[in-house]
Structure formats: structure tokens, C-alpha cells
């Protein structure tokens, strides 16, 4: 029996749905123009630019030291990573040798920030799928990380902490001890998250085999970070091209293996984030065990005035590969600064892998890609 629809008799119109800039689940001001046939999506077009704040144009009028708070505000959920990426780029231009203590502090802070950012990603992913409780638990644990940061530099979200040449303040007196306590507490919490969300049958049904991103498609679109590692590609800048002192630490790079479904589905991307948090705990413990003494302001230049030249430096942030391209002409203000944000490329793949799924799945896929509009629009 031929069950295909005879289009000459039945007229099916495509519906154009606007998942508008204001929506509970688009992780920021993002507009998705979705063409649907009933519940099944035939075309998705992400429209961005609602959060554009002219970051790159501002940088052409600000001195190198003044740019650091602006980089914070690009990816506001992982601000330390943005500061760190920018500082590494400027240090390459200036050719500075940093004291050991500064490098160790930076690694500890960066990994704590990675934990905090992944907590938000996991919580909001659960929220998108419908599980409301894990969100409150992850936010509660993230508050403890934010407490550590607040004791360190006074700010909870936008830190302005990692400056080119060093860090702004040395570690607060009880920082090491409080971090140890936090890490011990957090390891039991990861177990609870796995109990509630990861092994939940309904969660697996919603996310396994949904939004499968083959490795070639991911690489072609420039996807990096946990979204790429979920597709089976073991590409982590901390291992392949180690910057700072990451080559001194032992940690694994989790890669999606299709445990619950196909390789590269939403469950794999979520799973990679869960395991990365555990790896970050390892790195922090190793770093705190061998933290040297020293003066954190020793290598800070009084005035940053790099020689004429260009640099493109790459960094592994919570979302992927951050690229900072600085063009300097000898003044204390950069001639051109470009930030290649990971979420920019991660979002562009949504048009490719979101087709053919239902609307509920589009939300799931968007949540698993973990985007932050601040760094997409800059």
C-alpha cells in the first residue's frame, strides 16, 4: 500500500516559526528561524547580532591593560578563560617570561572556571530537557566556586583578574584550604548528578541518538571544545599544543564513544563535560600540591607597548578554541584585535545537524552545544 502523500490533493504548507530573541531556552538573545512541517524541522537559520557590543572597535581605542575587563564580558560564564587567552596573546607579543607561581595560579583558576562553566552547561541542559532539579543543584555548587573567586579578587562573575604579565592579586590566605574542601565536597556531588540525570532512562531517550554530529562535519564547520570531543575527535589544545604549564600535569582528554547511542549525539557531548569536570579536579589537585612561592607582580610591565608585529594565539576555554589575533603597530593601543570565539562556529553547525528533528530535539541539540551569546556577538 503506497502511503506517500499525494501532493496534488493534499496541500501541506510549511510553517515558519520564530524561536525569538526572547525565549526561555535559547541561552541568550538568539533568534532561530525554523521552517517546520508539523513537528519536524526542515530548515533552521540562526540569526545573531542581538548582543553585539562593538568589542573589536572598542579595543582599537583602549590600551592593552584596559582591554582586559572587556574580554571578560565576551564569554561571561568563563571570564577567567577570556582574560587568560588575551593575556597569553599579549605576552607572546611582548615576549615575557612569567614567574612559576603566576603560571600555577593561572592554571588553578582556569580549571576552577572550567568546572563552574560546565556546571552551568549541564544544569541548563537538564532544564532544556525538562529536569528542573539538577539545575538548582549545579547552581548551588557553582556558588561555592564563585565564593572562592570572590575571596580572591572581589568579583563573582566578571573578574578582571588575569592581567598580561601576571595576576592582579596573590591568592587569598585560606584559598588553598578552601579549595581542597570544595574539591572533596564536589566529588560526591558528581556522583549525585550521575544518579539523577546521566543514567536516567527518560534523559537517555531524549538525548541519545539525537543531533548526531559526524566528526567530518564537526571539523569542517570548525567546531571545537567538548562538542567536538563528543564526536570522537581527541583535539584538546591543552594536550596537542600545550600553553602555559599544562604539559606538567597528567590528565586525560575524554572523548565521546557512543556509549548510549551513536558517537557524536547529544548525550556524548553532555558526558564529555561531566568527565572534564573530574579531570579538572585532578589538575587542580596536582597544581596545588606543587605550588611554588614567588611574587606575582614581578614580571608585570609598567607600560605595555609591544613592538610592531602580529600574533595569533589559541587557547582552550570551556567552550572550545579561543583565538586572539592582535595586530600591533608599536603604540600602546592595538591596531586591530580579533577574537575568534568557539561558540560562533559551534552555533553555525546547528543549521546542519538540526534538520530533520522535531522541535523538542532542536532545543536539546542547542543545549548540548553550549553556546554563550556574549562571545558569539562580542
Amino acid at each position, binding site marked *: 500500500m503506497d502511503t506517500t502523500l499525494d501532493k496534488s490533493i493534499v496541500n501541506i504548507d510549511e*510553517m515558519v516559526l520564530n524561536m525569538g530573541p526572547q525565549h526561555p531556552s535559547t541561552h541568550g538573545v538568539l533568534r532561530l528561524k525554523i521552517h517546520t512541517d508539523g513537528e519536524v524541522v526542515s530548515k533552521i537559520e540562526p540569526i545573531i547580532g542581538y548582543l553585539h557590543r562593538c568589542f573589536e572597535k572598542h579595543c582599537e581605542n583602549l590600551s592593552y591593560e584596559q582591554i582586559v575587563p572587556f574580554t571578560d564580558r565576551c564569554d561571561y560564564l568563563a571570564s577567567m578563560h577570556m582574560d587568560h587567552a588575551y593575556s597569553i596573546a599579549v605576552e607572546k607579543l611582548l615576549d615575557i617570561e612569567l614567574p612559576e607561581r603566576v603560571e600555577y595560579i593561572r592554571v588553578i583558576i582556569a580549571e576552577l572556571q572550567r568546572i563552574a562553566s560546565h556546571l552551568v552547561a549541564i544544569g541548563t541542559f537538564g532544564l532544556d*530537557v525538562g*529536569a*528542573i532539579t539538577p539545575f*538548582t543543584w549545579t547552581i548551588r555548587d557553582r556558588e561555592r566556586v564563585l565564593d572562592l573567586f570572590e575571596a580572591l579578587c572581589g568579583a563573582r562573575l566578571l573578574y578582571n583578574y588575569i592581567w598580561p604579565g601576571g595576576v592582579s592579586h596573590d591568592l587569598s590566605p585560606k584559598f588553598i584550604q578552601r579549595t581542597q574542601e570544595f574539591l572533596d565536597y564536589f566529588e560526591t556531588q558528581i556522583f549525585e548528578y550521575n544518579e*539523577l540525570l546521566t543514567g*536516567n532512562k527518560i534523559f537517555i*531517550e531524549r538525548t541519545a541518538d539525537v543531533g548526531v554530529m559526524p566528526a567530518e562535519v564537526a571539523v569542517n564547520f570548525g567546531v571545537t571544545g567538548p562538542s567536538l570531543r563528543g564526536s570522537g575527535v581527541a583535539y584538546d589544545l591543552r594536550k596537542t599544543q600545550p600553553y602555559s604549564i599544562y604539559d606538567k600535569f597528567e590528565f586525560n582528554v575524554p572523548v565521546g564513544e557512543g556509549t548510549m547511542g551513536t558517537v557524536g549525539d547529544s548525550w556524548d557531548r553532555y558526558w564529555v563535560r561531566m568527565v572534564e569536570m573530574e579531570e579538572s579536579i585532578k589538575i587542580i589537585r596536582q597544581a596545588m600540591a606543587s605550588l611554588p612561592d614567588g611574587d606575582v607582580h614581578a614580571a608585570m610591565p609598567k607600560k605595555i607597548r609591544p613592538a610592531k608585529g602580529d600574533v595569533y594565539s589559541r587557547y582552550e576555554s570551556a567552550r572550545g578554541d579561543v583565538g586572539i589575533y592582535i595586530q600591533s603597530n608599536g603604540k600602546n593601543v592595538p591596531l586591530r584585535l580579533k577574537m575568534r570565539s568557539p561558540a560562533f562556529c559551534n552555533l553555525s553547525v546547528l543549521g546542519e545537524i538540526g534538520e530533520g528533528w*522535531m522541535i*523538542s530535539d532542536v532545543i536539546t541539540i542547542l543545549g548540548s552545544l553550549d553556546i554563550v551569546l556574549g562571545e558569539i556577538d562580542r
Partner: protein
Amino acid sequence: MTSIVKSIINSFQAFPIDPFLLAVLAILIPGIIIFLIMAVNALIAVYFERKVSAFMQDRLGPMEVGIFGFKGGKKFWGGIGQTFADAIKLLAKEDIIPKDADKFLMVLAPFIIFTGAFLTFVGLPISDSLVISNFNIGIFYIIAMSSVGVIGIILAGWSSNNKWSLYGAMRAAAQMISYEIPIALSLILVVLVSGHLDIHGIVQWQADNRWFILHSPFAFLGFVIYFISVVAETNRTPFDIPEAESELVAGWMTEYSGFRWALFFLSEYANMLIVAFVASIVFLGGWLSPFQLIDLPFIDILPESWLVLDGTIFGIFWLFMKAVILIFCMMWFRWTFPRLRVDQLMYVCWKIFIPFALANVILVSIWELIF
């Protein structure tokens, strides 16, 4: 046993009243009683849900608003007046109807849902001798009246002139109509076994034998199917796809605000209460106390005085206890599970529940014949 309507008519017949006025009184007073039950239930259930959800999420819930001398603040009952305050706020809110919406249908929709819940209460007894109107087709009437609410949801989604509401309405239509089949099939089990359609006969059968859930393992399976299906029927997570917050903003309720939204909410909690009542009556023995169950003829575990805990007042208490426990389970589900996608939901209904429920009917009959 007589129903409230009949007793009103009987008691007032002594006075020389116009029969028309008598009829109006006989309708009005039970109507007010039912409305009061629904309103009080909504108030308590909303507070209950907020506190339960808060404690599960490692936070405290409403803590500040106090009422009638219960001050807000540190104690865990601090937020007791929150629902009153919310109700008053909702009543005072501006009534917004979108420009191109179908005004008549949009105003009508909440009332249809409310009417569905209201009518179901008419045939639902609360105790041995307390029922609004004594139907001899009890269960059948209840199943039928619960189906009236679907039309209201579809109208609400359609009339809002909003693509998102339309999605919610379409999903709701499919879901609620499909899940009525496993509900009806599970309720038929008790009718088969006890031979009565009216509620008193069912509870009487359970008083004479044992609670229906313990009748056979298949009856237990019937209870499981029934309970999960009513979670789907009342649009609670994991089946709350029509009002999925993270996808459709608020689904079919998006364009509603103020008093109409309060009516929707009232009806949702009234529906929860109804299905919990029906589950308790049909499967868990209704207004019978559990001590009767434990009382074995040859072992004297319980003191004699405990067996007296039957009768009208205690019957109400037992029924409400069982219903509250079931409602707590429904709230527990909501905050633990993610939600199912639409096609998975329909798959569960048509390919798992309905075959099992059908098989159940046959197996329970066989069990009843053999034992």
C-alpha cells in the same frame, strides 16, 4: 444512603417553598460546596507543591508571607500566606486579550475546563454517606466527565492566535485523548471483579474482600498503568509536553493572564485531586481504614478500639490521606524526571500501555474465575 441533593430537598420540603426555588437551592448549595472544595484544594496544593519542590531542590520555598498570625520568617511554615497573596494578585490583574485572538473562544476556554472538573466532583463520594448526587453509574460518569477538559485546552490554544499555543494545543489533544484509553481499561478491572459500577458497591466489595490492589498481581499492574496514565492525563511532568516551559514558553496557556489563568491552575489541581480520589477509591479501598486489612482473624495484633476507626468522619480522613500520598507522588515525579518527547509519549501509550491494559482485562478475569 442519600445524597446531599436529596437530603436538601427532603429537609426543606417541610417548609412551604416554591418548588422552583427549592430546585435552585438544591443546585446552588452543592455547587458552592464543590467550588469551595476546588478553591481550597488549589490553595493548599499550590503551597504544598512549592514547598515540596523547594525541599527537593535544596532550597526553602515561600518563607516570607504570613497569614492569620503565622508570621513569615525563619520557621518552615513561614510562607503560608503566599498562595492567598498570589490569588488576590491574580484576581486584581489586568485582563489582556491579544488583538487578533478569537475573543469569544478565548473567554470560553477556561470555563469549559473548569466545568469538566466541576461536574466530576458531583458524582464523587467523599465518604460512606457524603456524596453530592448518587449516580448508579458512578465510575462511568466520572470517566466521561473527565474527558470534557480536552476541548477547553484545544480551544485555549487555538484562540490565542499564537503559533506556540497552537503547538501546545495540538500536543495536548493527542496526548489527553490517547491516554484516556488505558485509564478506562484499568478502571474496568474493578467493575469486572466487583460487578458494580457505582462507587459504593465497589468500596463495599473491597470492605468484604480486600483492597483491589491486592486482589491479584494483575490488578497491581492495572494500578501502575492507571497511575502513570493519569499523570499523563493531567499534563504533569514527565508528560507535560503541552505546557513545556523550556520549549513553548507556556504552551497553550501562553496568552492567558489574571483570573483566567487562575482558573486554569485551579482546574489542573482539581484534576489532580479527582484522579487521586478515583485511584484511592478504586484501588486502595476508598474510605476504609488500613487497619481492617491488617486485622487477621486469628491473630490479635491490633487493639479492639482501633477497629472502630470507621464511619463517616474517619472515612473522609482515610480517603484524603490516600489521595494526598498519591498527589505527593505526582509532585515527586515532576521534579525528578525530564520530560518525554511527543512521539515517545504516544509510543508509550499506544504500544505499551494499551496492549498491557487489554491483556490485563483478560488475565484479571481468568484470575477471578480461578480463585
